């Protein structure tokens, strides 16, 4: 029996954000994510050099007043490329994640409610798709269709949405078993209304946390693709690509590897910490025992 009055509906998100910031993990995580988002947006204007500008006389240079992080093997400024390196990744994954969440979540919740043969068939298909080794379908599709954002976004959204179906379905199962859903069924509400009003609001918390984790995995997958040469095409800057290029010269110019590593890692750490803090704030990792 709590005694606090909740904030009116529209401000629940603000309440959550505030609670997350109160935790050290949440504060650090959200700050890192916000930093990267701002950087991605503003970097074209604040980067010191053109990312394509090559200076053949200054390849693999160390840090200097002109080039704070040195240059890469083609004489391009590392700092500029690092600042811009997250844009493509964030753009693609930032759009693909919500799409994956929405389609995977809705389908999963619907299957959780309906059950029956639809559920069985769908689960076999989900298992089959999950059996495909992670990167592979992406690689194949990219080989054929090219690696532009227009291909990557729907591909990532599709393949990363499949595990979401599972999670949403499991969450829906837990909710469906509760009496208020039976009550809604008994009143005669249509299934879609039940999904919308009864199931979804109780499932969104789990989906949000899942979505945050998906985003970080998608970023990792995106970077891995770029690393293997199948993602962003040069000369566009991308952290995965930079690491791949620079690692050959690691002993000579370690900054070329370390800088993008730090950039990528801080973003992903930020997302993971935020997801953790979100889970704790929403009470999803706590056991539900009352104190007395």
């Amino acid at each position, binding site marked *: 029996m709590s005694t606090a009055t909740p904030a009116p509906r529209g401000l629940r998100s603000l309440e959550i954000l505030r609670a997350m910031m109160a935790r050290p993990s949440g504060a650090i995580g959200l700050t890192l994510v916000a930093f990267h988002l701002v950087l991605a947006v503003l970097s074209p204007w604040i980067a010191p050099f053109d990312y394509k500008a090559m200076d053949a006389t200054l390849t693999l240079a160390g840090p200097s007043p002109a080039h704070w992080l040195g240059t890469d093997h083609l004489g391009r400024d590392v700092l500029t490329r690092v600042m811009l390196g997250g844009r493509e990744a964030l753009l693609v994954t930032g759009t693909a994640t919500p799409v994956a969440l929405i389609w995977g979540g809705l389908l999963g919740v619907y299957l959780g409610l309906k059950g029956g043969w639809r559920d069985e068939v769908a689960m076999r298909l989900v298992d089959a798709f999950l059996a495909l080794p992670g990167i592979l379908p992406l690689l194949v599709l990219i080989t054929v269709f090219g690696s532009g954002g227009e291909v990557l976004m729907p591909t990532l959204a599709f393949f990363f949405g499949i595990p979401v179906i599972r999670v949403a379905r499991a969450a829906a199962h837990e909710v469906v078993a509760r009496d*208020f859903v039976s009550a809604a069924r008994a009143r005669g509400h249509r299934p879609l209304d039940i999904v919308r009003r009864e199931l979804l609001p109780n499932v969104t918390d789990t989906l949000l946390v899942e979505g945050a984790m998906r985003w970080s995995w998608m970023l990792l997958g995106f970077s891995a693709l770029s690393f293997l040469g199948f993602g962003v095409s040069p000369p566009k800057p991308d952290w995965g690509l930079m690491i791949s290029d620079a690692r050959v010269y690691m002993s000579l110019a370690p900054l070329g590897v370390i800088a993008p590593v730090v950039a990528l890692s801080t973003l992903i750490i930020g997302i993971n910490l935020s997801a953790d803090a979100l889970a704790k704030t929403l009470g999803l990792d706590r056991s539900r025992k009352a104190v007395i």
Partner: protein
Amino acid sequence: MADTTPLIDIRKLCVGFRGRSGTMLPVLHEVDLTVCRGESIGIVGESGSGKSTLALAAMGYLKHGLQKISGDVIYDGAEMFDHSPAELARLRGGQLGLIPQNSGQALTPTMRIGTQIREALHLHCALPEGEHATRARDLLAQVRLPDPEAILRRYPHELSGGQQQRIAIAMALAGEPDALLLDEPTTGLDVTTQAHILELLRDLARTRNMAMVYVSHDLGVIARVCDRVQVLYAGETVLEGPTRAVLRDPAHPYARGLLASIPRLGEQTLPRALDGRPPGPGEPRKGCAFAPRCALATQDCRAATPPMIAGGADQISRCLYPGRADEITGDQAGTQPHGCAKDSPCALDLAGLSIRYDRPGLFERLRGAPRPPATVDGIDLHLQQGETIGLVGESGSGKSTILKAIAGLLPPAAGQITLGDDTVLPPTVEGRRPDQLRRIQMIFQNPDDSLNPRQSVADILAQPLRLYFGLKDSDQRVRAVELLDTVRLGAPYLDRRPGQLSGGEKQRVAVARAFAAGPEIVLCDEITSALDVSVQAAVLDLLNDLKAAHKTAFVFVSHDLTVVRALSDRVAVLYQGRICEFGPAAAVYGAPSHPYTAVLLNAVLTPDPDHAPRLMAEDVAELSPPAQGCPFQRRCPVKCGDICDTDTPPAREAGDGHVIRCHIPLDELCARQTGEAPKS
């Protein structure tokens, strides 16, 4: 009988937890408890009173988050909270045993029963290891479990609730305890099972001269097994004394109110409700905790917490006016439930309803294997407008299943459900028209589960209003306020979420939601079983008023015979999904009765220390109904022969619509039940 040095001696115990703002919020406030060897003390309280915390504290254990603020917890002369972990482990399960509330969850799921009992023996039994196996079998025999070998090999989830509870008792006995703490030992068990377990506990107490502490909210349990009673309210002891005195003539207004709110088997009146609710743990209070709800409260009561002073008949009471406690209930008689006119039109008719849960797989159908008997079969029920029919039975009786079928959540395998105007209802919700759905509404058992935690009360009430009447926003709110007024909650509750309401308040919202549709028939599925007794009385009262105002018909399902008696016009007794007896409430609850009804009625506990339940049938859990014959054939104490196994019992009329399905003729039944003593 009792030794004079207390074995358990708790003095001025204060326990609390740290709230969000950092202040210490009390859960138990200066509570005393003394128990001597051979003595049985009952601790009575409703949810939030701190009774479980007290029992666990006697073992030196506090749940995560709670701290001991001050006071002494002494067992056998030593302070429990000063012991080392090794000392505590030696005492717990050994001299000091605990029987937990929900044994099903208290037994480790991955270990066999035998392993768990041997573990207890290994830790606390003085016998050499080789003899442990025999000892385990002995223990099971002492708790009256047949076939010990089979049970020792099973896992906890393979046992029934009653069996699990007996195992818990056996494990506690393994340590040869001097003191036993029992935390709600029979909550959640069937009536007959409960009666058997209590008898077992009484015998154990007598033969072993143990100190027993019973924690319960059920005064009937306390009346049966305890010598002394202590009543807790909001973390404080408010009354203490011999059982007889406390239950006959309590010297505290709360105890009075509590007793008055318990429905009694013998009377068809509604119990009187206690208004308001107890302060939650950690809520600030000044003066007597009960003062806000007490009709006798004066300025002195609210100024400072009253001390414990002597009341009548050897009781001590935390009240400034213990002698005047009887003014609370005084000479007010309970309200009569509203009945219905004899010739009211029909509201609902069930004809030959049969429901199955089994789904034969492909293989079974190919083999042509015979199907097991239906879970529910042969239900004929005729409900009139404004009438309340009670469905009574234990677990497995199919009563909730029948409600689900009426509501359309579970399609029947056979039979027909007809509404008052002769419309036959399609079997499932999906097939019914909105108008048909509106006329039947259901209220569920667990208020925590039946309201969507993400919706406000206004949203919850808006659902039926929008669905059935197409009301829009402002109209919805107006009507919602009206509904909240009828359930005595009012407009302030509109924007609250279920998480902020108490169990009773949530259930009232559920009632309001059901009535929002303006139904003709309301199905109540154990709606008071999850509520405290005093809250239950309020809900019953509310239903009674609504019944009178709207002439709604109710189908009221409960395992609690007293509650059903209080509210119903006619009652059906169910066993294994078949109706054994049906008729006007007074007739069903009197003689002659179906043998099963007799077993049930005799097993009911009342808060009357002089009343002993009679155990007439073995406590055996049946998993499914027999293929043919009388459903009660395997447990019937007065079974009259093989005919019970083969032929369906005929319906015998006892006048005024009272029907008993039994092979034994009515006059013989009547003679057995009113004249001679029972056989077992």
